[in-house]
């Protein structure tokens, strides 16, 4: 048998794990591990910087268990990573989107366990529609990732990975607090050596009636008036089913997820007390992984997704807007472990259908083929990861490419660099939607992105430090401009974004009350490269130049505490950079205490916006919640979970 280097073995193991991801606690040879009774041990979790899908990419991995007991949604979790900007439209379960490296929400690919949630309708993915109770970790990959993730990943990828089906693991959590905000979730997994099933359910709600202050004159003169948010209630829920089973020498994985809810649409500054939205999403997938030979592994996967959206905006008339989406795809992949690394060839084909008022019934087939290599050279010191993919989506097609490299310099310090390009076909909304003041444009072409980055990463026992620079160029961006009467999308946008991304997290003295600290800083310099003279060279609107996240936590076995700060620098409402809006700083704090060791029963308190800043608004000017106090009771299996 060919001898493999350590790095090669690592990659081979990774490839194997992708196919044969049996739980780590199953002993070799199928023998169950003897029960372990750990001494009380402080487990301090820190972010990581290596994504499973693209190990050389600039990435942050946010471990949800690090925030266990805290009421944090997907957006709040990924906002702890550099390069990421979340837009929170109203807070408390309302629309939340993500931008990476200045790209729009449409240009960030959001995956749930690898399944794309972006629909052909466009508009990005509402992160608040992903129940946070199921999350195990989130991979944030920055840069053009089309070669790995397919079209639409101009700014990057957010891959939300749900809890694994690990037999014996179970937990339940209930929260309640300000503004009648309530949530409950539970999950449990059963199984054996060769199978496991996870079931999870969650329900959340709030009446959203929080106080806020606003300037009714719009002059910014400081004369603020108090009010209470109305028609802001949210009710959501969902269920998750995951299972795996060893089949012969391979393994079958299955996942089914359904989530949805109803949200009031309170409006701003014109209040809309009767507007609402209902949404539902169901996702299902089944995957078979099978060794095909001594160094060859194959997998086949079927995926389906159903999206349903009803919106009633009374200003647009007494019509409820309906949108229904259905997508299905089949994917096959072969991995070859060769002397230098792993070569992966994958192909997929599918069909997406969308029916929407104002856009009609539309469908488009899509297929893709890609090849990628993860090679270890120079005795494992250098890792090269080229990838190339061709996508055809309806009548749009193009190549996405990525070349990544990681050079281990010394100790835990390595240098990472990557460059890539990808594209996003126009969405059905951009091509066909005729609603309100929106006009379609069937002549659109794909948006394109070229990105490059380089940075130093040190990841070891003390934690993580990474510092990198990036540059992105976005071309043919689809922007809405005035058409013949309303607003019509055109490929008129062109912009460059460059900056720095710094992340550090450490628990230097773990015996000292489990002290840990984390900081993420983003410098984002955007420049509009196309448009009227008065906008060329200006910052893109809604792109703050600076973002900073900082957290200090103490984590003892019997209790924990943390404090967080988010600082978002000032930016502009308009492309001319005439109308600035102010920087905001919000603080959150919390703590937990263990009530019972077995099972692990904890009571947690979290205070969001604890300085009670009632003037914080989102990018649309919607007021965001004032001080929010939430109590959480959480119970789980201390040995599994």
């Amino acid at each position, binding site marked *: 048998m060919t001898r493999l280097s350590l790095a090669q073995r690592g990659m081979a193991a990774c490839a194997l794990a992708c196919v044969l991801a049996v739980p780590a606690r199953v002993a070799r040879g199928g023998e169950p591990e003897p029960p372990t009774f750990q001494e009380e041990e402080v487990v301090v979790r820190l972010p990581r910087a290596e994504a499973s899908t693209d190990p050389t990419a600039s990435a942050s991995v946010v471990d949800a268990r690090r925030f266990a007991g805290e009421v944090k949604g997907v957006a709040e979790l990924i906002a702890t990573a550099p390069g990421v900007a979340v837009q929170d439209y109203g807070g408390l379960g309302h629309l939340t989107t993500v931008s990476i490296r200045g790209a729009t929400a449409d240009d960030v690919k959001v995956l749930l366990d690898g399944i794309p949630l972006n629909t052909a309708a466009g508009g990005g993915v509402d992160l608040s529609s992903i129940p946070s109770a199921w999350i195990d970790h989130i991979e944030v990959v920055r840069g053009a990732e089309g070669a790995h993730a397919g079209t639409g990943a101009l700014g990057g990828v957010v891959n939300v990975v749900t809890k694994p089906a690990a037999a014996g693991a179970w937990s339940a959590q209930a929260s309640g607090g300000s503004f009648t905000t309530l949530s409950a979730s539970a999950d449990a997994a059963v199984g054996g050596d060769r199978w496991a099933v996870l079931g999870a359910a969650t329900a959340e709600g709030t009446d959203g009636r929080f106080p806020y202050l606003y300037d009714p004159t719009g002059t910014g003169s400081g004369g603020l008036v108090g009010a209470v948010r109305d028609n802001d209630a949210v009710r959501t829920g969902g269920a998750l089913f995951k299972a795996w089973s060893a089949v012969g020498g391979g393994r079958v994985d299955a996942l089914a997820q359904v989530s949805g809810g109803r949200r009031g649409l309170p409006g701003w500054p014109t209040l809309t007390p009767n507007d609402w939205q209902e949404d539902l999403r169901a996702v299902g997938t089944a995957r078979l992984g099978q060794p095909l030979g001594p160094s060859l592994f194959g997998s086949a996967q079927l995926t389906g997704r159903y999206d349903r959206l009803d919106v009633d905006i009374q200003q647009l008339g007494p019509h409820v807007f309906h949108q229904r989406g259905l997508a299905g795809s089949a994917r096959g992949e072969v991995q070859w472990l060769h002397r230098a690394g792993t070569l992966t060839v994958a192909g997929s084909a599918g069909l997406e259908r969308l029916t929407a008022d104002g856009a009609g019934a539309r469908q488009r087939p899509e297929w893709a083929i890609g090849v990628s290599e993860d090679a270890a050279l120079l005795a494992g010191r250098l890792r090269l990861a080229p990838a190339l993919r061709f996508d055809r989506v309806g009548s749009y097609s193009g190549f996405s490419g990525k070349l990544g490299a990681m050079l281990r310099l010394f100790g835990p310090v390595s240098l990472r660099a990557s460059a890539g390009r990808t594209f996003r076909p126009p969405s059905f909304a951009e091509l066909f939607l005729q609603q309100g003041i929106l006009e379609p444009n069937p002549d659109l072409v794909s948006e394109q992105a070229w990105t490059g980055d380089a940075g130093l990463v040190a990841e070891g026992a003390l934690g993580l430090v990474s510092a990198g620079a990036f540059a992105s160029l976005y071309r043919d961006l689809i922007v809405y401009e005035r058409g013949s009467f309303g607003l019509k999308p055109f490929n008129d946008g062109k912009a460059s974004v460059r900056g720095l991304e710094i992340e550090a997290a450490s628990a230097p003295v773990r015996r000292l009350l489990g002290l840990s600290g984390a900081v993420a800083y983003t410098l984002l310099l955007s420049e509009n*490269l196309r448009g009227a003279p008065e906008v060329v060279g200006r910052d893109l609107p809604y792109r703050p130049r600076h973002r900073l996240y900082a957290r200090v936590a103490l984590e003892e076995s019997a209790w924990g505490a943390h404090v967080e700060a988010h600082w978002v620098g000032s930016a502009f409402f308009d492309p001319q950079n005439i109308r600035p809006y102010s920087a905001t700083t919000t603080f959150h704090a919390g703590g937990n205490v263990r009530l019972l060791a077995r099972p692990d029963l904890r009571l947690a308190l979290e205070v969001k916006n604890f300085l009670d800043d009632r003037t914080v608004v989102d990018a649309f000017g919607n007021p965001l919640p004032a001080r929010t106090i939430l109590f959480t009771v959480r119970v789980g299996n201390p040995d599994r979970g």
Partner: protein
Amino acid sequence: MKTWTLSAALVALAACSSQKVCPRGQAACGNTCTAIATDVNNCGACGVSCGFGGTCSAGQCICAVGLATCTGICVDPASDPAHCGSCGQACTSTSPFCSTTAGGTACATSCAAGQTACGNACVDLASDPFHCGACGRFCGSSEKCIDQQCMADLYLACGDTNQLAEASADLTPAGTTYTVGTRPVSLDWLGGRLYSADSIGGSLSELRFDLPAPNPVSISRTFSIDKTTAFPDLEFVAAGGGLLYVSNSALANLDVVDPFSGAVMAAVHLDPNGTDLFTGPAGIALANGKAYVALNGADAIAVIDVSQCQPVPPACGAGGDCSAHAGTACVNGLCVPTGCGQFLQRIALPPSLASTPNGPTPYRLLQVGSRLYVTLQNLDRTTPNFAPGGEGRLAAVDLLTNALVPGISGPLFVSLPAPCQNPGELVALGDTLYVACGFFDFFGTKATQGNAIVTVSLATDPPTPQAAIATQDVLSPIASCGGAVYAGATDTGTVVRYDPVTGQLTRAPLCPPDSNGNAFVADLTCRPGL
């Protein structure tokens, strides 16, 4: 590292290739787009100045009308001492000045009374387009010198290109274009300056005509009215009593603005009970110390007391102190009378005024005598595209009683002559009202309907619908000057001129299309005194 170097170089290279995109027919000269077909300072290309006596036509410098070409240069034989009266007729040192008086053009020892010596040329600074207000301060193409200021006849708010455009009364493009804030929608004059309400920009832009050469006409200021709303929406600006009044649709306010400081003196909320689904303040009329605001979404006219709003309010003292000015309070740095901008009442427009079940949707207002006339669009709010649900109408408010003028049964309304639908602005010429009409079915067939200029006689009471002048353009803004009526097209950049005497209808594209080929005339106004 190669990948990084390569990508950085790629991005850097691409970043250098920024593109300044201007409306069609314009070029980016410095940081502004200008009409190189007519701009005397950028004629045909950036930096090409036509110089003294030149005008720019179709991108070529030519001598202005009334000038002569002597040895290849443009000269004004009425004042040029080297060509006094005719080419080569040079004045001598004993009579060095060239002057034109009622007695003709001749060399003289000094300039005649009322004339100013610009060098040895005797000119009238009040009317000479090449020495307008100051020696060598020449006006733009087709601009006139009116009271020492260079002015065109018509000014247009070009909504798609974020510009103000100029034109002469015969619809010839004039001067150049002036970049204002985002999406100008409404124009009005105050103190010899033209103000533009920039809807999406949430700002007012000020076009001045008394600036020094080489750009005597320029946008001098753009001041933000709505500083906090993510999506501002200013709908209308009206000037009166030394102040500006702005319909702030995003906040459902009437903003009273001091034009000197640009500060909002009062922001009067037009939905004080918070009952409107959409208030939609639109047109404004000022009369008897009150501001009347058409509430397009609320089917009403708001009445605001602005009699206490005085122009040129004093600045606040330290810490917002206004104790030196009794009866005032410090608002945005100004000591504003506390009674400035008091909401008085709403004049509800009942369903009987509507030709559609969904309200009359008032739009624009015009004071004529003791009445206020209001156009009723009669849009059907139940349709996705707010299509006209019936005929366009007029209603009237009695300014003495602040009540609707009664008709035979219920409030008076006037059905506008067919085919008028979706009436926009209205203007009075003599005892006739002219109303611009038209609707573009953007969401459906893309067809237009109801396009016309219609007339209503005010010589009778009630007013009598008269004629409809059908047009191919969807018209909304309208103005009257020089005995003619001008209307702007909202589906194209065309301006229509109607001569009531001859009945002649002419049209010309005056708002340039943007880079995507779209243009619309959001508003138009004549220069004062024309």
